[in-house]
């Protein structure tokens, strides 16, 4: 049973090794009153090293030790497994569930795979709420705790508070000597002092500082309203993190003008923005959910001066002007990220990542490692 738990943890992506497990056994052996509660907290403290994994730990614990009362949760995982199985067009995953689909049907599913993927994604989103209810009752309080899954909100694929954003943005570092020479260089001081026959000769050097400069370009259009708080948090997390930060806003798509304020009253020529490209990196934030004509047609802008060049040209200019760039999309979930036609076009120009903790992390890595072009399967 204990070993089952150990492998349940590993199965859920919690990297438990024998060292951790022996530690757990050691503690339990010495504990004056060992119980399931003690096992719960001990194994968690020794095997799980991040609060974002607490939820998965709770799932594994409930799976391994709670066979009664977990029926509702199981029903959900079965449904989810079925949906997952649908997206594996070989039919193997479904066969593993005891469902045999006729080859014609499989071929048909494969032929319409885009539609299937979309439907499955929607269905998964829909079942997330009601089906994943907690089981009733239970014998041990640790099990109850595990089932309550109080740490669900700490999962890294869900929550994005300012602090976790800041951690992810911590990757944005390029330390280079900067500013006045006011840091004592001890090694050089000793060297120079000895060379000077003991007469103390203090040597100073320039301290290393973060040299990253950022341009944040954010969509402030109507479809972005639900994500406004998220974007706001991103902004407050970036502030103070980098050497220079400038924020601009656009409505659905940037054209020859962007705006310096979120209400879009102070226009800024995009040409001016392009000139920043030399020593700044570009982080664009938007759901890329614009009407294709806003993107592809001259005069497609829905507000502001009529644009001679289509939005896609401006996007391309931005991408070219900035040595490193990335596009963050707050529409969560990899499979829905590029579902719209516009999002696909934008994703071909910029490297696009979901605005989740994982996505942000990948995006920052992309930036620090060169941050060149788009045309990538995002967040696979």
């Amino acid at each position: 049973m204990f070993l089952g738990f150990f492998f349940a943890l590993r199965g859920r992506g919690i990297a438990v090794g024998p060292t951790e497990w022996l530690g757990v056994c050691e503690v339990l052996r010495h504990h004056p009153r060992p119980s399931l509660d003690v096992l719960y907290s001990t194994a968690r403290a020794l095997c799980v090293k991040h609060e974002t994994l607490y939820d998965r730990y709770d799932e594994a614990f409930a799976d391994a030790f709670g066979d009664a009362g977990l029926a509702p949760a199981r029903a959900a995982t079965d449904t989810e497994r079925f949906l997952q199985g649908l997206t594996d067009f070989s039919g193997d995953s479904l066969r593993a569930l005891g469902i045999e689909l006729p080859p014609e049907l499989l071929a048909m599913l494969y032929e319409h795979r885009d539609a299937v993927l979309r439907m499955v994604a929607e269905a998964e989103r829909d079942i997330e709420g009601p089906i994943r209810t907690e089981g009733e009752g239970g014998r041990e309080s640790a099990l109850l705790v595990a089932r309550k899954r109080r740490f669900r909100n700490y999962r890294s694929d869900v929550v994005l508070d300012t602090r976790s954003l800041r951690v992810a943005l911590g990757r944005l570092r390029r330390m280079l000597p900067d500013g006045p020479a006011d840091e004592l260089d001890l090694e050089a001081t000793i060297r120079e002092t000895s060379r000077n026959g003991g007469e103390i000769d203090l040597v100073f050097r320039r301290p290393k500082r973060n040299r990253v400069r950022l341009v944040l370009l954010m969509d402030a259009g109507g479809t972005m309203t639900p994500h406004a708080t998220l974007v706001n948090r991103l902004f407050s997390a970036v502030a103070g993190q980098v050497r220079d930060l400038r924020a601009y806003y656009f409505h659905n798509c940037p054209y020859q003008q962007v705006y310096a304020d979120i209400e879009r009253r102070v226009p800024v020529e995009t040409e001016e923005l392009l000139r920043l490209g030399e020593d700044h990196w570009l982080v664009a934030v938007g759901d890329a959910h614009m009407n294709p004509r806003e993107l592809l047609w001259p005069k497609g802008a829905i507000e502001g001066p009529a644009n001679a060049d289509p939005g896609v040209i401006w996007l391309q200019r931005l991408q070219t002007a900035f040595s490193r760039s990335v596009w963050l999309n707050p529409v969560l979930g990899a499979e829905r990220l590029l579902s719209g036609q516009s999002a696909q076009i934008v994703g071909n120009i910029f490297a696009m990542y979901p605005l989740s903790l994982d996505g942000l992390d990948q995006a920052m890595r992309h930036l620090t490692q060169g941050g060149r072009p788009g045309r990538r399967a995002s967040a696979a």
Partner: protein
Amino acid sequence: MQFQGHNAYIAGPGLIDDVNAALLLGRPLLLKGEPGTGKTVLAARIAESLGMPLYEWNVKSTSKAQDGLYVYDTVQRLNDARFGEGDVRDIRRYIRMGPLGLALQSEQRVVLLIDEIDKADLEFPNDLLYELDRMRFRVTETGDEIEARVRPMVVVTSNSEKELPDAFLRRCVFHFLAFPDRDAMARIVRVHFPDLAEAMLTAALERFYAVREMNLRKKPATSELIDWLRILMHKGIEPGDLHGGIPNLGALLKTSPDLELALRQLQPPAG
């Protein structure tokens, strides 16, 4: 040796077990959680209740792992040599032990608090791996080998400003201090203010959790609540006074955007 909890510290579920696991295995206890949830205080309480001395190492952004072990004061020695003061041949006079060095040198078991380890450079925890694992180090300048007679109880706190390296995490016992719910918070407040009126406590907690519900940059935590209650009690505020606005909101919220937001949402319209 068993930590049984402390009467002035309300431990969340599993915390006492985790402290004891760390004591037993001689591994560092890593505490994470929102600022103000009692991470630092716990170390002091452990030391108090086990009767061990507490060494504190407050990590700063400029802290180096070496500083915790010892510092060789070259500039002082250079200076003494230049001006002919003291015995510069005795290098030990210029070795100053840091908190970790002192903890390892100690004759008895001690509690060592490494506070806010995430403030330092990303590589900082990695630089401490060997010393925390083996509980020994060598003073390069003198060749002295310093080894702990008893493994100190190491408590490490982190605000997760930076992620800690895996190799470091693997050697720790980890506990995440979740923010206390209303009942737990009521018990915590009781510990600090045994004679606070029940009605006042309920009203204050009501307002406090309402403030936390708001979309704030920095949510007030336990320590802010305690400060705030202290002010309220000092001013002799009655539960009824809390229904209108929130007096001394500045004790709970520390940034001006948060204050403005809270004032807009909580205070009744003027007039």
